[in-house]
């Protein structure tokens, strides 16, 4: 009982998330509202952190929410927009995590004390390269599985994710490169991924500045990814993808190169998953092969379905709610982890039974819709 009260009490620390969600859900059609959402989230969280009314832990969780949301929207693009059933998303994610994490670990160890003006571009570049590596993986998965649909494609994507996991488990690389030790420890993963580089502004100490940087990067990159995907979805290319989902044969006959768009979807979705993976590696400061495993893929799938498949907004909402629920259940059960998944599962079943289309299926935040669009139905 005391656990319950404590766990509920601990929820209070996530009030900045509630503020951000409130801003997002506000029924405002104006397109400049995105700036209010983004600015509001930043000010509330960073201000709270600075004043000591938001804990370092809470901000860390918020950064994780943003990263989870990046993975959710990239997966909802593959599964919801083009309608390919991919359930190996963590496999794409971990490729980006490895590439990005190893790159920065190497650079920052080779040149300790890299000035911030250099460290930030190196970090951002490592994210892009991680994304590019994942995109290449997406191409490798997309090309041979073109002819597969539905369940069969799903099985193929699990297979690919498992191959990636197995390869990563076997790769051990532990040697000196130009004066720095690079460790890729097979089943032990990659330790010593540096934190996201950021300044220590006045009012912050080393501890709070680190977590603030992680939050700011994750949030801004989430905003960028959502903007890019939203533009794509509501463009002629996005319509082509939706057509593939609705009726592949009809789309092809009406002039849509379905093969191109299916491969393209995998490449684009995997790219953003890789960027999210890079952020996750720097957020958790180590990478473990199991982070690319089936269980993790399913977790992202749950976020997407709970939010409403195909909805970017739903992915963001569900990422926030599920991440916080996870924290809540951890507090509640205090180590009896088996029960956590059971309760988590029960809540999911209850939600999906009541709302089969997810929390926000077929809808987007009003301010996220392009001008002149009266209807957001795409899913």
């Amino acid at each position: 009982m005391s656990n319950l009260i404590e766990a509920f009490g601990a929820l209070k620390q996530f009030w900045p998330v509630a503020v951000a969600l409130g801003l997002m859900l506000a029924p405002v059609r104006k397109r400049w509202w995105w700036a209010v959402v983004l600015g509001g989230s930043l000010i509330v969280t960073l201000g709270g952190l600075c004043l000591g009314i938001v804990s370092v832990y809470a901000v860390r969780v918020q950064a994780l929410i943003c990263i989870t949301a990046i993975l959710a929207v990239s997966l909802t693009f593959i599964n919801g927009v083009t309608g390919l059933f991919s359930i190996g998303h963590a496999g794409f994610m971990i490729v980006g995590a490895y590439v990005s994490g190893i790159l920065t670990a190497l650079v920052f160890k080779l040149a300790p004390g890299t000035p911030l003006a250099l460290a930030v571009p190196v970090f951002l570049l490592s994210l892009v390269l991680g994304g590019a590596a994942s995109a290449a993986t997406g191409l490798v998965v997309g090309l041979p599985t073109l002819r597969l649909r539905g369940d069969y494609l799903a099985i193929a994507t699990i297979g690919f994710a498992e191959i990636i996991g197995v390869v990563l488990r076997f790769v051990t690389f532990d040697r000196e490169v130009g004066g720095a030790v690079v460790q890729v420890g097979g089943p032990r993963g990659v330790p010593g991924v540096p934190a996201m580089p950021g300044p220590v502004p006045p009012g912050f100490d080393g501890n709070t500045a680190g977590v603030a940087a992680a939050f700011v990067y994750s949030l801004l990159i989430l905003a960028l990814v959502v903007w890019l995907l939203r533009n794509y979805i509501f463009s002629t290319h996005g319509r082509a993808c939706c057509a593939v989902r609705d009726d592949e044969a009809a789309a092809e006959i009406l002039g849509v190169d379905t093969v191109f768009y299916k491969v393209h979807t995998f490449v684009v979705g995997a790219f953003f998953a890789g960027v999210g993976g890079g952020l996750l590696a720097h957020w958790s400061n180590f990478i473990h092969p199991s982070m690319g495993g089936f269980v993790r893929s399913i977790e992202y799938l749950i976020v997407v379905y709970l939010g409403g498949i195909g909805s970017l907004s739903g992915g963001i909402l569900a990422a926030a709610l599920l991440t916080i629920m996870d924290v809540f259940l951890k507090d509640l059960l205090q180590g009896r982890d088996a029960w956590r998944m059971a309760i988590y599962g029960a809540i999911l079943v209850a939600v999906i039974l009541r709302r089969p289309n997810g929390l926000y299926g077929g809808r987007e935040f009003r301010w996220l819709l392009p001008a002149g669009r009266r209807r957001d139905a795409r899913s």
Partner: protein
Amino acid sequence: MPALELKNLRLSFGGLAAVKDVSLALHAGELVGLIGPNGAGKTTLFNLVSGVYKPDAGDIVFRGESLVGMRPHVIALRGVTRTFQNIRLFRSMTVLDNVKTARHHHARSGSLAAMLRTRSSRREDEEIGRDAMELLELVGLSDRADALPSELPYGRQRRLEIARALAGAPEVLLLDEPAAGMNRSEVAGLSALILRLQRERELSILLIEHQMDVVMNICKRIYVLDFGEVIAHGAPEEIQNNPNVIEAYLGKGGRA
């Protein structure tokens, strides 16, 4: 030179010869009917032309170029589009988006430009939207641009299919039973629309239709297909009095 010419087409599914030796010519700007009992191979013929099936033998020539072996989207790009007998609209997309999608290959800006929402990609999208809206006006659906296809009555869904096929700016349009399930006044409107398309847009149209009054009234030439073969070909009056045709539809002794 005909706009579209089918030369000795053959296609079998296992032991069943669905199309045996069909030759047919559609001249530029012509409206030709294709009739025949159920299972005669009419839709199969459309599937051959649009690249869904590959013929076992024979050739399909469009503007002097063979379409055989091309993927369906390439054929659409060349200028041959079609509608479907069983309506196949994109159900989760609005009426307008359905038409815009089929105008997709008129966009030149790449996916990266679309993501970054560059000026040229936006302008292009506006153009596509305007063109699509014009087509909706043409078929009389501009008032329902934001509706979902499932919210339209059946007859209007068929009109949307036509608008969507027109979005690809075709030279040859294949209409697969556009009047199916329509009531009398809808059918009259549809006939007028098809004639307008032929005259104003100078389209060459091949029309599959079971409602005989439609075909007989608007087509100058008609091909009759039965068991995968052309059994008759000519003007409507000739077809109506052709003993082979009467037998195919009514069986032997149907002439009585």
